[in-house]
């Protein structure tokens, strides 16, 4: 096995390295674990010199550089609503290393931050070697395998209005472990009615997915226990969870509605 490491001087130069089989190393929590298993020879490229570790909050718009760590999110007072998400990912050492960019590529049951970013309807900025492109996160996730040949630069989203963002990660070992099911939801209300609800699930498919049937059940209704129970019945309708060391697919489907109700019910 031979591993080489270089630091990218510009994002636009990264895809050429990836095209030849090279891989970005961000926090390294997934990729170095792979290398330790005895992965093949690989050219690793870091984004350490590109200044991708910045967090910007301007006029209600949040932009997280791809190299921002979970620890940096959990320390940022402007991002209080995301603290429970960042703090649910690994222990403190994992959080100090794990990046937002890497989380977008984490296989299930990982990807808790990605579930939160999906419910925030984030936009991914990436460089394909020729130009910078912007993609809605849902499109990005659908093409994730292919886009691993591109360089994610940043992730932006509108900060949710106070009290509209909800998050729960169900684990078998407190305080932190890999997800059995992760639910992130933004439930805005206008004139007492739910408007543009977004619900995302982690660990319920190969990558984070939206629960559109449950969202539709909430739309235009008054938030209350009846309507939450109706939406809960649909929460796993589009899911295709896996059996793994943490839970069976059956168990994940059984408990997702229970935790959805607990998350939203007053």
């Amino acid at each position: 096995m031979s591993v080489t490491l270089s630091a990218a001087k510009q994002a636009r130069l990264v895809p050429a390295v990836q095209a030849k089989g090279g891989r970005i190393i961000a926090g390294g929590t997934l990729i170095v674990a792979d290398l330790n298993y005895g992965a093949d020879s690989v050219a690793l490229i870091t984004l350490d010199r590109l200044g991708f570790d910045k967090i910007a909050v301007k006029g209600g718009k949040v932009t997280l550089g791809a190299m921002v760590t979970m620890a940096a999110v959990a320390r940022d007072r402007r991002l209080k609503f995301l603290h429970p998400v960042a703090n649910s990912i690994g222990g403190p050492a994992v959080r100090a290393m794990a990046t937002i960019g890497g989380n977008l590529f984490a296989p299930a049951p990982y990807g808790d931050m990605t579930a939160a970013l999906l419910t925030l309807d984030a936009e991914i900025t990436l460089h394909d070697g020729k130009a910078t492109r912007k993609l809605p996160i849902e499109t990005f996730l659908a093409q994730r395998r292919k886009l691993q040949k591109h360089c994610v630069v940043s992730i932006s989203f509108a900060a949710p209005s106070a009290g509209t963002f909800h998050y729960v990660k169900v684990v078998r070992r407190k305080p932190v472990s890999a997800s059995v099911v992760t639910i992130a939801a933004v439930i805005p209300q206008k004139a007492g009615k739910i408007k543009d609800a977004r619900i995302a699930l982690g660990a319920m498919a190969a990558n984070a997915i939206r629960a559109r049937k449950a969202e539709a059940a909430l739309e235009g209704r008054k938030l209350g226990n009846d309507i939450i129970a109706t939406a809960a019945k649909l929460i796993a309708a589009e899911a295709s969870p896996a059996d793994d060391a943490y839970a069976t697919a059956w168990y994940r489907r059984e408990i997702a509605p229970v935790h959805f109700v607990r998350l939203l019910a007053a």
Partner: protein
Amino acid sequence: MTKVPVEFTLNTREQNEFVETGSTLLSALRDRLGLYGTKAGCHQGTCGACTVIIDGEPHLSCLTLAERCQGKDVTTLEGLAPAGALHPLQQAFMDGFAAQCGFCTPGMILAAKCLLDRNPDPTRDEVVDAISGNICRCTGYEPIIAAILTAAQGMRKPARKRA
């Protein structure tokens, strides 16, 4: 294997090393520098035995490439107290029987140090979170949590006296 030079601060001393490309900080510490305080457990990030402090934050040395430590400040268990002396956390672990086989102890102590450096007066829950990435097969965690709280208390006392 190609070797590359790395310069970093290790336990307050300048360190210049040639490391194999793609090798981890864990292997540099143990195999090249003979610092066996950092334990090698799972090599997958899950046990926390290899925890070190880099630039004030806990890091898993098994998932950190040695080359990426260029210019960084690395602290291992060996750097916690002068030779022959014990850090208050080490003393509290000893006094409170917080180590049985001792394999998890260096990682636990360094994870705890990162907490106490930031938060000298932690709650029990904050202690539990601080060591949540560190697995112990022996103690059942309770003596470890108690030792960290005791060390925190002891470390706060001199500061109070001065005030």
